[in-house]
């Protein structure tokens, strides 16, 4: 596609529910990143993939967060047993290696 596509755009989850957020990167982009943006804050790095390999997951806040990119294209960020503090906008970005990243519009997750 022309840009990074994320779905859903909005998600409301009850506390304790599992959620899955999808990212479809720009075709041909090797690197894929997930960021978390809390209200009033800048985005914070969660994890990154080069093709299907997850090379860094140092930003994942807990073991409830899991990301995958099995075929080196679409990626899914899964959050298990959601908590209120997980409420944020989750941004996906992709890039050709060693260049700046292009961001999707994000998924706004609200945990109630």
């Amino acid at each position, binding site marked *: 596609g022309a840009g990074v596509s994320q779905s859903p755009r909005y998600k409301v989850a009850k506390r304790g529910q599992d959620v899955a957020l999808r990212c479809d990167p720009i075709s041909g982009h090797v690197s894929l*990143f997930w960021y978390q943006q809390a209200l009033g*804050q800048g*985005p914070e790095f969660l994890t990154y993939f080069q093709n299907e390999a997850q090379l860094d997951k140092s930003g994942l806040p807990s073991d409830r967060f899991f990301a995958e990119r099995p075929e080196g294209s679409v990626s899914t960020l899964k959050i298990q047993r959601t908590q209120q503090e997980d409420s944020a906008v989750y941004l996906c970005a992709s890039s050709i290696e*060693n260049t700046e990243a292009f*961001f999707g519009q994000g998924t706004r997750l609200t945990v109630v």
Partner: protein
Amino acid sequence: AQSVTQPDIHITVSEGASLELRCNYSYGATPYLFWYVQSPGQGLQLLLKYFSGDTLVQGIKGFEAEFKRSQSSFNLRKPSVHWSDAAEYFCAVAHLFTSGTYKYIFGTGTRLKVLA
């Protein structure tokens, strides 16, 4: 560890006035620096970047930024603001991975309001 500070949380300017958004960074080596803009409900759009060379960088939408190593700053400027510039602006420094790609360390952002 790298960090970025944007000292101004909110800035209000009149349409047609000049603009300067401040950014200070902490990084041991020569940094890769970026400015992104985020409009409501939108993703981040790259305005400009600095990797090396000329310290005055031109970007899209009439923005420019100047890298000053002695002040650890990368301030964003625009000579005449338009109402459509109202948005949130993020400064970022790159953290390089051994693979050669990089992640961003963002500041907390500056929200720009433009008065008609």
